[in-house]
């Protein structure tokens, strides 16, 4: 998809399960098909958030670490 709008949620500095809660709150507001990118500096959340995404059935698009910040991208599927 060209020019796909990605909503960025900056949860850096927050600890588990803060980033997950931020993501869930924003996903509730998002449209189906929308892509969100969660920024988290919490290593535990970087491991946990993808587990939650797969468990509830959204699409995990990727997770990359850069300078101690994880960028986790997810597409809302329902």
């Amino acid at each position, binding site marked *: 998809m060209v020019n796909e709008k990605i909503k960025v949620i900056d949860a850096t500095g927050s*600890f588990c*399960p*803060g980033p*997950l*809660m931020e993501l*869930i709150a924003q996903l509730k507001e998002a449209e189906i098909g929308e892509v969100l990118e969660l920024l988290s500096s919490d290593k535990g959340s970087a491991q946990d958030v993808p587990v*939650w995404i797969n*468990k509830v059935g959204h699409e995990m698009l990727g997770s990359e670490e850069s300078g101690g910040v994880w960028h986790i991208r997810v597409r809302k599927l329902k």
Partner: protein
Amino acid sequence: MGGCALRLIGALGQPLLLMRHPGVALNLTGREEHTMPNRLSLLCVSGSREKMQMAAMVAATAGALGTEVIVFLSMNALGYFVRGEAPKAPAEGDMGRLMAEKNVPSFRHLFEQAKDLGGARLYACSMAMDLLGLEEGRLESCIEGPMGMTRFLSDASGGQILVF
């Protein structure tokens, strides 16, 4: 901490064996499968910063995973949910002191998120309310209302109880 819940449940004649490993089920091949129970009931009593934080984290995360969460607030844990009062939760040890310094989400905020995002239901122990002379109107809005021990144990029956 689970031992207390086991004894309570045992006193009501519930099956102890099922409660000992509530998150483990055997599938048809005989392999153990780890599952979340459908209902998780949290009994918050100590009021320490570490235990309140842990309980709130469990409530928020379990709710987010689709588990039905009931939180029963009693003893020293109820005072944080009275309107107009904001007691500081005492730390049990270094971790609690560290959490106060770092940007850890407050347990009050996490419990509210557990309710708003995960459908957790929070109740105030009616016995503790009587002792404190609290009317229902003094409870914070995130609390559904008062609940007695009998109803809590009855609602929690068949699920898992964690004590904090």
